[in-house]
């Protein structure tokens, strides 16, 4: 028997460490040593902490939401007693949970399965065999051809064909070339790159080394955001282990091909996800984008030919070279091949990471895999593409998820973050939220991006503060066009998208804010009024006690009243009231 515990950032945050400590203590108590594998994230984050028991026939029993007490029970009854605790099991390998069975896992194939800190685990899953095949049997051009056949497109946002970039870098003249991995994952709400970095770092390293061979580079640099300390630690371990086994470094596997790897920590700037800004940041400068061309393939890091790809893009590469481009292209749609990882978050039941073939309908992803909306509320929209993307409404739930179909809705595929919103999410507030983000993160180089987003933000702030004016919507649309046209990099070019899509699909919400001074979702505080319902109030005094500004008065057992002049609309009273007596209008 073996034990496996999800030990990514999410598993740890959910309490995984206490579970592991308990399991270790139990082993000691009973003098029974059981192999304990700490893995990355399997993607079922809503079930964390997750404990798998793997029996001697390799059957996997998955226990969800494990507490230290449950862990003790699992150890005693299942490990020692050999009796599975059916009541806690959510999935077994012969009857997997729908969230797993509907997936095709390529980039995530090892995440949550192997111990990312143990190279032997990766090797046992055919690790570094693709690299061996590539450097021993294939030409660089042959590798690029295979990637071309696979149809792989960049997973970092723009969806550019990967082979094309590799080919350009391969054709570029120069002795020194670089492979760079974009692990900046700046889109708030996306965490697939973190999961790969934490759960299967060798897949990334192998993908990068294959790319190095294909373009003629001997050095790789990973630019990883500093907010991912665990990812950086596991990458460091992976690099040093791989070097020890001569899978990286000089003269790999005796073939004469050398490839070294470096990690650079980001310092917190969203714009550094843009490739030219990222290169500037790698060089130690302020991360300001520059005009293309020249493209990085001609002149990138230290003005040398550089190929830059996203983490997930690289993580697909070993599988493609091992199984062949054709096998990869068998998944997906005509123009979007293979699989894509999506991060489901927001008001969704089963938040987590899922990898599905391209072309699956949004509805299937959100309902069949994601389990639908939390608390059985009504679906309102799904946000895709983060600050560069848009909100897709209910009417378009049957849109297939591939690059082109998503772009048609006005959103973008982006890195694959899907934030699900229900009836309680205010779309004007969402537009304000994203613009606040892009406005803060604009590097300031382009005037339209720096000042245009600011002006748009001011209008949205006015609208959500109840001071919207007729003509505001048109002004926003006009500014949006100017900001798109007047910006050099993708940040400014796409910053208006969240505003434009919310106007396109939820114009009535804007109008309610501007004309009726009402927030239909009851989010924008200045537009709300809190009142206490005379029929429901029992005079329990709790709201008055919890009111931070003493705006509520009333004697015990008598009706309480909110003084509107004092009320700051913090909503405490509504939260604490046990009789649902506080009404929000």
């Amino acid at each position, binding site marked *: 028997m073996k034990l496996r515990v999800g030990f990514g950032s999410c598993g*740890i945050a959910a309490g995984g460490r206490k579970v592991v400590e308990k399991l270790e203590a139990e082993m000691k108590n009973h003098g029974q040593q059981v192999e304990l594998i700490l893995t990355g994230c399997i993607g079922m984050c809503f079930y964390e902490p997750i404990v798998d028991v793997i029996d001697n026939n390799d059957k996997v029993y998955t226990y969800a939401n494990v507490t230290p007490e449950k862990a003790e029970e699992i150890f005693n009854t299942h490990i020692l007693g050999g009796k599975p605790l059916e009541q806690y099991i959510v999935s077994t390998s012969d009857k997997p949970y729908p969230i797993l069975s509907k997936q095709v896992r390529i980039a995530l194939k090892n995440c949550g399965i192997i111990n990312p800190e143990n190279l032997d685990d990766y090797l046992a899953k055919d690790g570094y065999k693709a690299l061996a095949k590539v450097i021993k049997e294939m030409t660089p051009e042959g590798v690029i051809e295979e990637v071309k056949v696979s149809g792989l497109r960049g997973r970092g946002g723009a969806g550019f064909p990967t082979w094309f970039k590799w080919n350009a870098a391969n054709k570029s003249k120069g002795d020194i070339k670089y492979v760079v991995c974009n692990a900046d994952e700046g889109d708030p709400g996306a965490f697939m790159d973190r999961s790969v970095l934490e759960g299967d770092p060798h897949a990334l390293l192998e993908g990068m080394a294959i790319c190095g061979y294909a373009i003629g580079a001997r050095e790789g640099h990973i630019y990883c955001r500093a907010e991912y300390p665990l990812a950086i630690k596991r990458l460091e371990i992976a690099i040093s282990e791989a070097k020890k086994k001569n899978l990286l470094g000089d003269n790999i596997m005796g073939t004469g091909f050398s490839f070294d790897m470096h990690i650079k920590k980001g310092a917190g*700037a969203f714009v550094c996800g843009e490739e030219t800004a990222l290169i500037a940041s790698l060089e130690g400068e*302020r991360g300001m984008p520059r005009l293309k061309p020249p493209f990085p393939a001609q002149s990138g890091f230290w003005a040398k030919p550089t190929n830059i790809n996203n983490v997930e893009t690289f993580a697909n590469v070993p599988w493609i070279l091992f199984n062949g481009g054709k096998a990869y292209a068998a998944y997906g749609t005509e123009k979007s091949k293979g699989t894509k990882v999506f991060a489901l978050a927001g008001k969704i039941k089963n938040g987590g990471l899922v990898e599905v073939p391209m072309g699956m309908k949004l509805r299937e992803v959100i309902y069949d895999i994601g389990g639908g909306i939390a608390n059985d509320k009504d679906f309102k929209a799904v946000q895709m593409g983060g600050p560069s993307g848009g909100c897709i409404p209910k009417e378009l739930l049957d849109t297939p998820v591939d690059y082109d179909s998503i772009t048609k809705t006005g959103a973008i595929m982006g890195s694959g973050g899907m934030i699900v919103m229900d009836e309680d999410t205010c779309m004007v507030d969402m537009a304000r939220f994203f613009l606040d983000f892009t406005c803060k993160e604009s590097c300031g180089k382009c005037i339209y991006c720096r000042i245009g987003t600011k002006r748009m933000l001011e209008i949205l702030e006015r609208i959500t503060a109840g001071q919207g004016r007729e003509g505001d919507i048109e002004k926003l649309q006009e500014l949006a066009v100017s900001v798109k046209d007047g910006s050099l990099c993708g940040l400014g070019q796409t910053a208006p998208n969240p505003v434009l899509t919310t106007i396109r699909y939820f114009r009535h919400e804007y109008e309610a804010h501007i004309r009726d001074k009402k927030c239909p979702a009851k989010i924008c505080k200045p537009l709300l009024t809190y009142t206490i319902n005379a029929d429901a109030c029992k005079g329990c005094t709790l709201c008055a006690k919890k009111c931070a500004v003493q705006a509520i008065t009333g004697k015990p057992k008598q009706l309480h009243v909110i003084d509107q002049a004092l009320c700051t609309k913090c909503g405490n009273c509504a939260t604490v009231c046990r009789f649902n007596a506080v009404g929000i209008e």
Partner: protein
Amino acid sequence: MCNSCEKQLETKFADGNVDLTLLEPIFAEYTGKPGSIISILQKTQEIYGYLPLSALQAIADKTGNKRAKIYGIATFYSQFRLSPVGKYVILQCHGTACHVLGAEKVGSAICDELGISPGETTTDGLFTLEDVACLGCCSLAPVIMINGETYGKLTPDSVRKILQNIAEAEKGGVVCEA
């Protein structure tokens, strides 16, 4: 900049109270390595907890750059701070998922509990609160990270409890389970 402000800034750049010898190992590691300024600043911040202006001056001198350039880099990136931080640095996520699930209420509770605003440090030097955009644990939103440890699925009450536990433990009291 007015004269007196400039003078004040000048004294900070020349502040003799900061032990600059601590920078020596960093210089030794990065001398002759181009493109290392961000890494040098990160290591410097690890030592002092922030970037003293006098350290920026020393880095400028050592790397042969104008201090305006070093200052420019230090203020471009949100990770760098120019003033000291508390023993516990709370990063509060205001990413999309956290926003949708009530990060604002959690933030208000933290501010209220500690009596500070984002970007500030408590007077006892224990806590600093900073806003960030996404910690990558979106499925556990709303999320905060305290000194590298992530806490998820927070409510205003649970976050207060976490902070109270830390404060309690610091006082030498008993840590109760959250």
